[in-house]
């Protein structure tokens, strides 16, 4: 029993069905972690990409080093670092926030490269034309860069969403009670790991498929007339 839920181990099917509500709680945590992490990755990635374009070498270099460092070290190590080392500096975050932050940080390094590629794909001549027409930097991004960049980068950003979703179980190592953590606990108590772990896998499959389908819909819905996409 967990959280007042009963489970029924009389048959594999009955067991699987009876632990569904518990796994549902974990699913919610998984989805929340992915949502918060992805939001961080989208925003922070954009900030990093823009800072990397700074005319001040100090800023662009610092950001470049930071991005490269985060990209080239394992998520698990970063996660442990945030969870065990930050408190030494007086920063104590709840396990869930630490996990979401770690995911967000790692993926912001990936998304910043996607944004950077998207911005670099705008030819210099278009920036010059925007200058010649006296558009401000903000107007240039809003009207010229972003509308051309978004349809180009949505597929790559979508891939990272799927990938992040599948990586959320890592958070269970820092006591976040996601689906995997709960399945493990059920396994510990019933000595049956097969059913709960299979259920976790089975829940992930349709979730990722639905996510991919949604990304595809977004891709198709974006206006892209006139934009050379390849």
């Amino acid at each position, binding site marked *: 029993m967990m959280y007042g839920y009963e489970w029924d181990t009389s048959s594999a099917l009955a067991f699987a069905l009876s632990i569904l509500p518990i796994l549902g709680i974990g699913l919610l945590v998984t989805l929340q972690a992915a949502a918060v992490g992805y939001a961080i990755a989208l925003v922070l990635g954009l900030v990093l990409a823009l800072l990397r374009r700074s005319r001040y070498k100090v800023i662009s270099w610092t950001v470049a080093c930071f991005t490269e460092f985060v990209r080239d070290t394992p998520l698990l190590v970063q996660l442990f670092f945030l969870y065990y080392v930050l408190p030494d500096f007086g920063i104590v975050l709840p396990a869930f926030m630490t996990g979401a932050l770690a995911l967000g940080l790692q993926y912001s390094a990936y998304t910043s490269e996607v944004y950077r590629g998207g911005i670099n794909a705008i030819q210099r001549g278009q920036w*010059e*034309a925007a200058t*010649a027409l*006296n558009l401000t930097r903000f107007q240039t991004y809003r009207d010229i860069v972003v509308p051309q960049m978004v349809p180009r980068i949505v597929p790559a950003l979508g891939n990272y969403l799927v990938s992040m979703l599948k990586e959320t179980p890592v958070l269970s190592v820092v006591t976040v009670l996601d689906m995997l953590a709960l399945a493990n606990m059920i396994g510990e108590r019933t000595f049956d790991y097969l059913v709960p772990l299979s259920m976790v896998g089975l829940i992930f499959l349709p979730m990722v498929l639905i996510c991919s389908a949604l990304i595809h819909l977004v891709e198709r819905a974006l206006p892209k*007339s006139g934009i050379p996409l390849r």
Partner: protein
Amino acid sequence: MTSIIRFQNVTKRFGALTVLDNFNFDVRQGEKVTLIGPSGSGKSTVLRILMTLEPFQEGQLELAGIGYHESHGRGDFKASDRHLHKIRSNVGMVFQSFNLFPHMTVLRNIVEAPVAVLKMKREEAESRAVELLRMVGLLDKKDQYPSQLSGGQQQRVAIARALAMRPRVLLFDEPTSALDPQLVGEVLGVIRNLAQEHDLTMLLVTHEMRFAREVSDRVCFFDKGRIVEQGEPDRFFTNPEQPRTREFLSSVLNG
């Protein structure tokens, strides 16, 4: 006559390479000036400096009474964004590679800046854009995307787009160099009509010598970052004084 453009001892370097060396140059309001010369002689740089696309290192420059700030070292303008904005409001540019915005229709390309920068109402900007498109003979293409147009048509749209900002000075940077030979005529035709505009000051970098002779009030021959020779086109082309000018003209006219 007062000068609308005045370069005073302007020096522009790219690293160790000096592109403009103590450059002095005056243009009267309404004057049509053609800049010719071998590639790398600095003629395009003059336009790019005027358009604030390039900073320069030494000297002074004024356009329509507004001074440009030279920069030292870091390679950026010292002027504030607001000042650069003020400078640019008097000048427009037509590029060799057209540089239309590919995700916008022809009409939106022309309407964009007047709405965003001049805060013009969209309907007003559109009706003016329609007028400009009629002038360059492309009204029927207004809802097409640049990729659906020929190079010559794209360049005519780019001219309309620059004119929509009502510049006092219009810069043409080799406007026909990227075009197939059979498309050059239509673009030159539009520029020729523009040259009739009394108030519009035009600076044109081109390799079309016959056209330069026909439309300009003055031809300037550039070599190694300096104006070697300049003058009224008929005199310039029939009776060039400098040996370097004669050499260049014979190579392009007979080549």
